């Protein structure tokens, strides 16, 4: 239901295509930021978002729901797919190889110039440590942490996780403490 080609099937298809476009334009960039934090690789992030929006494109009923609800659904699916991707042993191997090859290219040029090769290596180690710690936090807390520190409001977090807005603070507080404890254990100073 995405393009003119489908209009032949249904007279409402064109407006449905417009609706999907609007959702894509509204949410693509912010979901990119969210998923990139999990995966740390632009191509993996793009692939995850392709998968996420493909699922949305298959569900006309979902697209018809209000934007905040669709946004919550997209975030939920994107986060799950991102962590699945991270877990998948096969993809992880490919990813390690690719990140290795792309090490220079995926880095901002200003960063590489400012940090130098040694600085970049340290930066990658630090990023890996954060991701390792995040992966050890219980799932609900982990998602809450990720959403909050990607800039989402409590209302958006509550809707994404299907919890009461009043529960977000507790979940977040516990998540931050759990993360900090794990992170400290992994990177003893």
């Amino acid at each position, binding site marked *: 239901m*995405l393009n003119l080609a489908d209009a032949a099937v249904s007279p409402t298809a064109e407006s449905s295509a417009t609706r999907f476009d609007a959702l894509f334009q509204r949410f693509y960039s912010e979901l990119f930021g969210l998923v990139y*934090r999990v995966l740390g690789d632009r191509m993996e992030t793009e692939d995850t978002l392709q998968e996420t929006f*493909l699922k949305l494109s298959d569900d006309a009923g979902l697209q018809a729901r209000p934007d905040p609800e669709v946004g919550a659904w997209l975030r939920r699916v994107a986060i799950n797919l991102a962590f699945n991707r991270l877990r998948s042993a096969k993809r992880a191997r490919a990813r390690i190889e690719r990140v290795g090859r*792309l090490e220079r290219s995926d880095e901002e040029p200003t960063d590489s110039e400012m940090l130098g090769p040694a600085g970049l290596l340290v930066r990658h180690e630090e990023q890996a440590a954060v991701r390792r710690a995040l992966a050890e936090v219980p799932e609900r807390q982990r998602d809450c942490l990720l959403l909050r520190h990607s800039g989402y409001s*409590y209302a958006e977090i509550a809707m994404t996780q299907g919890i009461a807005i009043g529960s977000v603070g507790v979940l977040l507080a516990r998540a931050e403490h759990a993360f900090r404890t794990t992170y400290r254990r992994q990177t003893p100073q």
Partner: protein
Amino acid sequence: MNTPSAACPDIGVWRAWLDREVDAAQLEEHLAQCPGCRGVVALLREDADHVRAAFALLSPGQAGLPSTADAAVARERLEWQRRRSVPELSPLYAQEPIPMFLSRISTPWRIAASAVAAAVVLSILVSVTPEGRALAAGFLAQFRSQQVTAIEVTPQSQTEIMRTLNALGNLGTVNMPGGQTGRPEAAIRNASEQAKTATLAEASQAIGFKLETPDPALLPTGVDKTPRVQVMPSSQIRFTFDKTKASNYLKSTGHEVTVPDKFDGATLVVSIPSAALLQYGNGSSKEALIVGQAGELVVDVEGKVKLDEMRDFLLSLPGLPPTVVNQLKQIKTWNQTLPIPVPVDQMNWQSTNFHGNNQGLLLNDNSGVGSAAIWYESGHMYGVAGSLRADKLKAIAESLAVR
């Protein structure tokens, strides 16, 4: 009393207060009087600050977020995947037709892939604009690219062009290389994936003229002076109108367009020339440079329909952005000018001369990371692109010669 009591707000409330997510006045009053809660808040703040600092390392940063043009390309790729309906989700990356070192300038190249596809449909339109009809005067049956001009496109109009192009299949049959039917854009992607490694001599033979190379002294430092040479085969896309199919489709989309009988079976033939790519750089070099050379792109029409009639029909297609159509109409030498869509949110462009009086385009990535040049000379198209500043790139373009 140094520990919170049952009457004190719980940690969730305090955490929300730190984020200004709850009403503050009453809580602040309580905090002023309760050392226990002050202790809780101090710990919460410490944890939150710590996590914030750690997560800042993971942020893609403003520069790393996809531009609107990136999003438009992703949107098009999504559509393509939907239509292919194959389980593998990342065919482009899995096959990696473009060397990995080019990923530094990957965004412009991904844009370029779409731009080439868009250029084809734009060329068809250029061939058949109203001004074109007057010029045609019955003897110009053909479009042959001899020069280039910039057409400014926004991500939105780019998406619209691609969608219209890809909807051509509803008006007839699109035949791609190898007898396949499908979407024109897929044919172009397919051609780029069929690139074969060759020697300079082999590549010259494939494209039909002697390849030129840049002055090695001007190449970026650290770049291998010997290029990797690849040849992309020529290809032809044929689009044959089907009156019944087109009428049904247009009716179903709510557009009252009458399709004359003679359109039935009329065929547009777009011949994309064989192209050679010289790639300078390797896995460990910071800089990358590509020099591309190809012949003319030719658009013909077969059947009872003339170009101007084809124009009327194509311009009546729903979905083409008027701003783009207007720019096309202003091209004077329509029958030999290849329009190059320039995504203006991502690139600056200027018209400039290369190798003497050969007019062309110099494109500059807004971020200053990459630039590109494209021009026609003696019926041959030349393109240079790289992770270089535009002035350096222009010098390399000027140095191209048969060596």
